[in-house]
């Protein structure tokens, strides 16, 4: 896999979370505005009907019923005139645009529209109920009904019925038509009342939360970019690892085994051609070659440990680190390994400590050439923080120098430590060794 960097393509505006949040919020605000208008109109209509019923009942009891006369029921002109003048002066005011008085047979005893007087129309069930039981009823007028033929110019009106009684006890139906021209105004008034609570509230919510969403979105984008970078680094590290293993095999074990092979071939030839074979010399040579083969085997084992991390849960972090530093010890380096509290660590923390120790030991052996190497693992008294310290007295390096393109180790480890909620610090000076310290939450 080749090395290099990848860049995240910029998302279209409509795919950005903040834009989507604001758009959805505005759509919801518009919907709320609409539903508030609908509810406001409905509420206004209910209020208008309630008001109309109250008005009708009041007029029926205080104005109309006291003015009813038997002459009115008989369509006597004088009674009609007096009742008409009363209705025009005290009833036909404000929202009241039509007045009708019905008898139980559906005859219009009186109307402010004289052409309706003495006309007969069938009463509907609601009107019959009010006539029979009293009370009042209200509804939006159905102008298609025959009784409303002359009421078309009134527009949309509310019909309200109330029962009244003639002086002879005959029940009559007092009907008012009330203009609902102010219904829209009343709905607007209610809408204005609710708008700050609904639409305004939502807009305020949008205003307050949009910055939060923006920040969260930025964080999510940054986290995604970090993950993507780590993946790239892991892939690049894996590539470099394979190259390093191949180089180690070629420069180390392969060379040793080749040398051993040549030596053995020479010895085999000598045993056939030399008459006076020095058996003690032969034995020394064979012991030396056996030592070389064991060293090669040890090198291969260390390489295997590096290539394939041990089963940390099975063998434990301490044993795995012993294997890790074995190669360094074999090469003559003074190694001190101190592991305490490793059993209390979580699996992810153990793996991170192992991975960090592996990288640090490898760097020390390969680049530092130290005489002493110290690896310490511990957990603080509260059992909350785990610490790994790898110190060597080798060649050291300049911490501030730009890492080589192949140097992914410490950079990647620093990211891994941060992901785990910890820190990785490096102290090193050219010619004065290096110390790498990892601190992470223990669980």
């Amino acid at each position, binding site marked *: 896999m080749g090395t290099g960097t990848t860049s995240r393509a910029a998302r279209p505006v409509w795919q950005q979370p903040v834009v989507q949040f604001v758009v959805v919020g505005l759509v919801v605000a518009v919907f709320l505005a609409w539903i508030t208008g609908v509810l406001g109109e409905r509420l206004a209509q209910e209020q208008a009907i309630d008001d109309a019923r109250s008005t009708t009942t009041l007029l029926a009891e205080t104005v109309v019923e006291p003015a009813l006369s038997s*002459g009115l029921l008989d*369509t*006597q*002109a*004088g*009674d*009609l*005139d*007096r009742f*008409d*003048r009363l209705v*025009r002066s005290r009833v036909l005011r404000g929202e009241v645009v039509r007045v009708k008085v019905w008898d139980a047979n559906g005859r219009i005893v009186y109307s402010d*529209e*004289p*052409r309706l*007087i*003495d006309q007969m129309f069938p009463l509907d069930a609601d009107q019959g109920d009010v006539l029979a039981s009293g009370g009042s009823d209200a509804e939006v007028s159905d102008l298609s009904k025959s009784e409303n033929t002359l009421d078309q110019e009134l527009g949309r009106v509310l019909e309200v019925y109330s029962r009244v009684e003639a002086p002879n006890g005959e029940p009559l139906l007092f009907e008012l038509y009330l203009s609902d021209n102010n219904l829209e105004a009343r709905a607007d008034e209610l809408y204005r009342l609710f708008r700050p609570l609904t639409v305004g509230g939502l807009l305020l919510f949008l205003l307050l939360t949009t910055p939060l969403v923006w920040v969260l979105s930025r964080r999510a984008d940054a986290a995604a970019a970090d993950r993507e970078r780590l993946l790239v680094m892991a892939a690049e590290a894996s590539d470099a690892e394979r190259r390093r293993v191949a180089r180690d095999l070629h420069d180390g074990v392969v060379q040793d085994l080749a040398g051993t092979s040549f030596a053995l071939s020479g010895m085999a030839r000598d045993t056939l051609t030399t008459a006076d074979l020095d058996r003690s010399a032969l034995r020394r040579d064979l012991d030396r070659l056996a030592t070389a083969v064991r060293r090669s085997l040890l090198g291969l084992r260390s390489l295997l440990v590096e290539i394939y991390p041990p089963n940390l849960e099975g063998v434990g972090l301490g044993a795995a680190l012993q294997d890790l530093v074995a190669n360094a010890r074999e090469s003559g380096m003074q190694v001190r390994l101190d592991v305490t509290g490793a059993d209390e660590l979580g699996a992810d923390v153990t793996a991170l400590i192992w991975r960090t120790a592996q990288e640090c030991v490898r760097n020390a052996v390969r680049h530092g050439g130290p005489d002493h190497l110290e690896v310490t693992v511990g957990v603080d008294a509260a059992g909350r923080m785990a610490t790994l310290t790898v110190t060597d007295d080798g060649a050291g390096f300049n911490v501030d120098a730009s890492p080589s393109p192949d140097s992914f180790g410490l950079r990647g480890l620093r990211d891994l430590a941060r992901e785990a909620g910890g820190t990785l610090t490096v102290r090193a000076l050219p010619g004065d060794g290096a110390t790498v310290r990892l601190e992470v939450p223990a669980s």
Partner: protein
Amino acid sequence: MQHTTKFTIAKIGAVALSGVVLAGLATPALANDADVIRRGSCAGNSDWKLKASPENNRIEVQGEVDSNVNGQTWKWRMRHNGQVSARGAATTSGPSGSFDVRRLMVDLSGTDRIGWRAKNPATGEVCRGSLRY
């Protein structure tokens, strides 16, 4: 009376003819096509006037007495199809010593009969007139 259907040229002619016959007692006059006006003399020195006009599907009735004396109180009464529609009292005023009252009556189907009566209780003079509309 529904003036849109009833008020015909023939009827205007009939009213005018009856006015000629009753000259001296009640003189009909026409203000416009829809109005019906009657005038006449009371029992004394006063004159009366009765006028019916269409007004928003109703009949506006105007009764008037002209006695040429200021400060007289008259009791008046309007009838509609024989029923008392309105009544009251009024006092003459102004340069002409007159009063007038206006009332709206329901315009019923068919011909409406409208009567006008005024009486001066002090002198006993009575004015009386009528019209059909």
